[in-house]
């Protein structure tokens, strides 16, 4: 969790060897409220940076999960289909959403650091 990067769309991104794991932040799950369903992309499908690749429905709203980089889906968290509430309960661990293989790992450098992200949500809380 130390080296995680963040997006303005409230996702966290963790690099493990050649792949990245993506989830939503604690702040995002709290804002969304009770999450009741998720639509996941197919493994093997490709997305461009900032393209919507999954949809989370909470009792309050629907929100897209955007691809933080160009890449290909290598795995999705199928547990969430039966237990979408895992995202509320454990957004940083058990509630991870999907894994990707980035085409161009340098794109990760443009994402936010933990400090930058905390500043962002500190401001949008106001």
């Amino acid at each position: 969790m130390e080296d995680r990067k963040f997006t303005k769309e409230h996702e966290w991104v963790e690099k493990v060897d050649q792949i990245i794991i993506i989830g939503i932040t604690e702040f995002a799950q709290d804002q969304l409220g009770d999450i009741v369903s998720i639509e996941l992309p197919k493994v093997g499908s490709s997305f461009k940076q900032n393209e919507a690749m999954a949809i989370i429905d909470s009792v309050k709203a629907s929100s897209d999960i955007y691809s933080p980089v160009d890449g290909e889906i290598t795995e999705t968290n199928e547990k969430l289909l039966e237990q979408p509430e895992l995202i509320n309960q454990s957004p940083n661990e058990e509630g991870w959403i999907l894994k990707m293989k980035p085409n161009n790992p340098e794109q990760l450098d443009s994402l936010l650091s933990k400090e930058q992200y905390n500043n962002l949500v500190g401001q949008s809380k106001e």
Partner: protein
Amino acid sequence: MRSPFFQNHLELKAKMVDFHGWEMPLQYSGIIDEHKNVRENVGLFDVSHMGRFKIKGDAESQIQKLITNDITKIGDKQSIYSPMCNEKGGIIDDIIVSRINSNEFLIIVNSSNIKKDFDWISGNIQSCEFQNITNDSALLALQGPKAINILKDMKVEQIENLKSFHLLEVKIDDVDCIISRTGYTGEDGFEILFDSKNVQIWKNLLEVGRKYGIKPVGLGARDTLRLETGLMLYGNDIDETVTPLEATLKWTVKFETEFIGKAALETKKVERKLRGFEIESKRIARKNNKVYDGQKEIGIVTSGGFSPTLNKPIGYCFVPVDYPLEREIMIDIGGKLYDTKLTSTRFYKK
């Protein structure tokens, strides 16, 4: 604006939201948890944002002109739900009129319509005292199968004998209250009106309710509870472009009475109808999503949400009047069509 219980909500760490200019609690423990607790136990809602008007004087026949329902069907200390229509039959608001006695009436209106309704009613009522008491009073709703136990424990006289849509003028903890057996949840319950300085009532109800599992409930669960029950939300399902006959409010239109909008409702052909829908695929439809039959756009979603009781997405939509229940249609959610079928708007019945 803030309700008299604003500080209580902050103490309970509610997530607050702006609702038509009122800072109100959206949720405390979570929408689904609060929703289920109202169905199973009891919940306490601050609904002080609802508008409250008092009319004193010879008002009955004048109020009748304002509402589509039949006010002569209620006696003293009874309430009636009704749309209030304009000349075209469009719904200005849906309101509850309570008859305290032949010379005194109380009207509860939606918070979004307080000013509009006040102007409309004062323009149509003569030689009566007409007063907006919203800011001087507090309104709480105590809803759920165990609501009655709490008021019994608080020694509210005659509460067991109070019928649905009837009201009592009684004391709770030495505070003068008007309690009516009404609500917006589909459960047994009460709405309690009192002077806004008696804020301690909130804490007292929570304290006495503790052994019945009471929880405070925010506007989020208020919406999911009403949606499951087939109750209209002004601004979503009904507004001035919708008539009571298009909504599910035919039962409130009494053509044997005289009211503003009657001629329009008698002559205007009803072409669309509000229906319920359930979606199997778990995507939630939201207000203004389009409804399709094959390639053809046939209507629009007015309310959509997740039903904690059915554990699936539900909602209401307008479709052509000749579309029967069980008819299969599709809803466009984010550019993708989802199969669904038309149902009754009463997803939940006790």
